[in-house]
């Protein structure tokens, strides 16, 4: 044997098989001498090595607590997040880079207590994240307070005369939440645990393993000599598990270990991305228009009525038409409506200006389109309009007495738009009947610009009806 060879073989002996996956600079660890979290850490490393995963593509995310410290000792990409938030943080990583293998390590308090909502949601979201939950029946890092899995009657520092709370069953919750892999193991059965971890990581959906671990603080307070001995005595690894076994997680009664579910990922409907039908509609109807300088300096337009009358769509049509007519014109559109989508008061303000628009609301409208009188009535019957303004009113919906005391200089035009729409089309296009009439009686916006805007603002499939409604309004003559 040459010297070189002996040195080389020595090095091999000195190199611990897990060395590459441990952060030496973090040792010694913080765990108590009788704690078994370190063993879970090692089983995890063993599982990764047996699976042959590239450690550079494995990420461990943990929250806060004794077991959550695992993230710091593993020489992997690791995130030590805030209390309870390991699962959503892991989800963010997985969504951003789906090629990474993402595992969550944490305790019962972290994952099932403060992080319970995230735990439930992961089952539903169905992403390939492995949750390894170390259950030691309470909050150990802070001195052992009771947690979601503390057995009934167990003493902790916040239940000194015994816990009155019924513990949750993590396996049952995971099964109900839709995890595709669910298993139970203990720190006293490392080879079983390795097998469970390997199966969990092979599963392509959300996986959950409840790992029972002993805690010295729990043992002392409840005068138990050794939880590890109890685990070894009471736990039975089973090949096939029945519904009864789900409940056998209480170590005083008996513990059933094994894989409760290892299901394929649910088939998801293929994502069909929303396609725009607007372009085809525009092609079909072909409305060409010419843009020109409009000469508008500043104009306040308000459309008001009842929710459901298409007030917002009307406002949108107007501003789109203005954009068609004069691309250099500045404009804003704001809307105000009550909490109810239909039946409440609703108004949209459109401001057109040669300068950038400052205050985005109409103060005194130059053009007011009244689809109903609900807004005016809420205002105490007052109709606000500029002295030289124009009001176009749906006479089938508005109490015309409201318009009696207006200055003589105000121009008022009436059309029974809702009635026309109801008789000829559908009520929802009343806004465009009115719009056609507005186009005729005022010369604010070019007809073709408006029609092109109606095409753009109308819901797909209703273009034709909306355009017909517009034409009807445009041709309206008082009989």
């Amino acid at each position, binding site marked *: 044997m040459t010297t070189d060879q002996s040195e080389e073989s020595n090095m091999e002996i000195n190199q611990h098989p897990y060395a590459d996956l441990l*952060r030496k*600079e*973090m040792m010694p660890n913080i765990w108590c001498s009788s704690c078994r979290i370190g063993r879970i850490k090692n089983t995890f490393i063993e599982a990764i090595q047996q699976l042959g995963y590239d*450690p*550079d*593509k494995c*990420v461990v*995310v943990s929250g*806060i607590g004794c077991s959550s410290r695992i*993230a*710091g000792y593993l*020489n*992997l*990409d*690791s*995130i*030590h*997040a*805030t209390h309870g*938030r390991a*699962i*959503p*943080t*892991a*989800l*963010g*990583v997985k*969504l*951003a*880079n789906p*090629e*990474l293998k993402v595992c969550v390590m944490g305790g019962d308090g972290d994952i099932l207590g403060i992080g319970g*909502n*995230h735990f*439930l*949601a992961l089952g539903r*979201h169905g992403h390939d994240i492995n949750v390894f939950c170390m259950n030691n029946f309470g909050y150990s890092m802070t001195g052992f307070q009771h947690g979601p899995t503390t057995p009934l009657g167990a003493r902790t520092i916040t239940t000194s005369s015994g816990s009155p709370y019924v513990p949750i069953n993590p396996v049952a919750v995971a099964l109900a939440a839709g995890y595709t892999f669910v298993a139970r193991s203990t720190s006293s059965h490392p080879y079983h645990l390795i097998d469970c971890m390997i199966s969990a990581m092979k599963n392509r959906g959300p996986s959950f393993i409840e790992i029972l671990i002993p805690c010295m603080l729990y043992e002392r307070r409840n005068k138990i000599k050794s939880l590890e001995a109890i685990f070894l005595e009471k736990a039975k690894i089973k090949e096939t598990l029945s519904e009864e076994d789900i409940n056998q997680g209480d170590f005083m009664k008996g513990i059933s270990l094994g894989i409760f579910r290892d299901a394929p990922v649910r088939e998801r409907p293929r*994502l069909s*991305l*929303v396609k725009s039908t607007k372009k085809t509609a525009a092609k079909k109807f072909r409305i060409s228009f010419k843009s020109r300088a409009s000469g508008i300096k500043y104009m306040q337009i308000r459309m008001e009525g009842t929710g459901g009358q298409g007030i917002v769509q009307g406002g*949108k049509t107007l*501003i*789109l038409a203005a*954009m068609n007519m004069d*691309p250099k014109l*500045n*404009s*804003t*559109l*704001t*809307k105000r409506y009550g*909490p109810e989508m239909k039946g409440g008061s609703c108004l949209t303000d459109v401001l057109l200006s040669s300068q950038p*628009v*400052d*205050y*985005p*609301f109409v*103060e005194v409208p130059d053009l007011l389109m009244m689809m109903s009188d609900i807004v005016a009535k809420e205002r105490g019957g007052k109709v606000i309009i500029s002295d030289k303004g124009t009001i176009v009113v749906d006479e089938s919906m508005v109490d015309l007495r409201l318009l009696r005391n207006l200055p003589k200089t105000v121009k008022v035009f009436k059309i029974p738009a809702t009635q026309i729409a109801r008789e000829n089309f559908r009520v929802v296009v009343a806004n465009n009947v009115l719009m056609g009439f507005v186009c005729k009686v005022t010369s604010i916006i070019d007809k073709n610009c408006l029609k092109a805007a109606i095409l753009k603002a109308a819901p797909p499939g209703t273009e034709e009806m909306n355009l017909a409604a517009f034409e009807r309004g445009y041709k309206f003559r008082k009989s």
Partner: protein
Amino acid sequence: MSDDNQRTLLTGNDAVVEGLCCAAGNKRRIVYAGYPITPASEIATRASVIIPRRGGAFIQMEDEIGSIQAAAGAGLTGAIAVTATSGPGFSLMSEGLGFAAMIESPVVCINVQRGGPSTGMPTWMGQGDMMQARWGTHGDRPVIVLVPNSVQETLLLTYEACKLSQKYLIPVALMLDEIIGHMEEPITIPELPPIPSAPDVEIIGKGHRLHRTGLTHDLEMHLPRINPDAQEKLVRYLLDKIKKDAKKIVRYESFGAVEDAEVIIICYGSESRSVRAAVKQARKKKLKVAMVRLITAWPFPKDFIRKLDKKKRVYLVAEINAGQMRIEVERYIKNGTVQGLNLMGGRIHTPGEILEAIEERMSDDN
């Protein structure tokens, strides 16, 4: 998307998503994690259509805490990580924002402000989260807060927020308000250069085996070091990231002749649109009035405000809260008088109301 010279009609909420697309370019992945809340829901609606189409990920989380955490996790992988919410959700995100600052994850958090406190007025505007955006986390953390006042600027500042968060590896907040979020304006969607990603050594999944922890840690390896020296080093380092570049980051806009103004109105967000209208009217009346609009609320343009203080005059801080940014202005004004012009939420001042307030201050002076 539109042609070069064609404008698109978008709301402020829509423009946020367009800004994200500009920031990501063709290659970067966008991860959007959010929870529905009025008046920010439309951001999620648009994001859920556009982001998957671009190969990114959209997820509706179980709550706002999960949303910010998912964004913080995604940020570490080099993606454009973003979440959007309103006041109540922003409160829930406080811890997560501190976490993102601690682990140096670039996250963009959009807050479309509404009337508060508590559930307040979901469908009406407010500006009451300005101080929360600055201080709403336990401990000291670096903060950048941008406040747009138009739909076009919302797009540009969303882009800017992504850029700043990737540059300094911190969470950046973009504070819209309900008016800006729901208002529609024609805008042009510009061609902006995709923003550079953080270096590989800061990104997980690149073989560097990073550890990121919310515990106090050393600066080299990010491994936990719980002692006063490490804390001193770490927190000062985090704060200095912004402090040393504050002059470069700070943005504001002034309108009217600031130097010789007798009354200067300081404002931000949608309220500044009213103020600009009022200042225009006041200047027509030959009143010496000017306006300063904060674009970065934090870092605050303190050097500029200090410079203004050479002259004795009245500063009117117009905002839709009980006077949050006024506190900050008062810190730097020693010669002049600082007064508030406040509404508690629901609407902004009309230009007339502001003009009246200006005229009142003018007659006070005489």
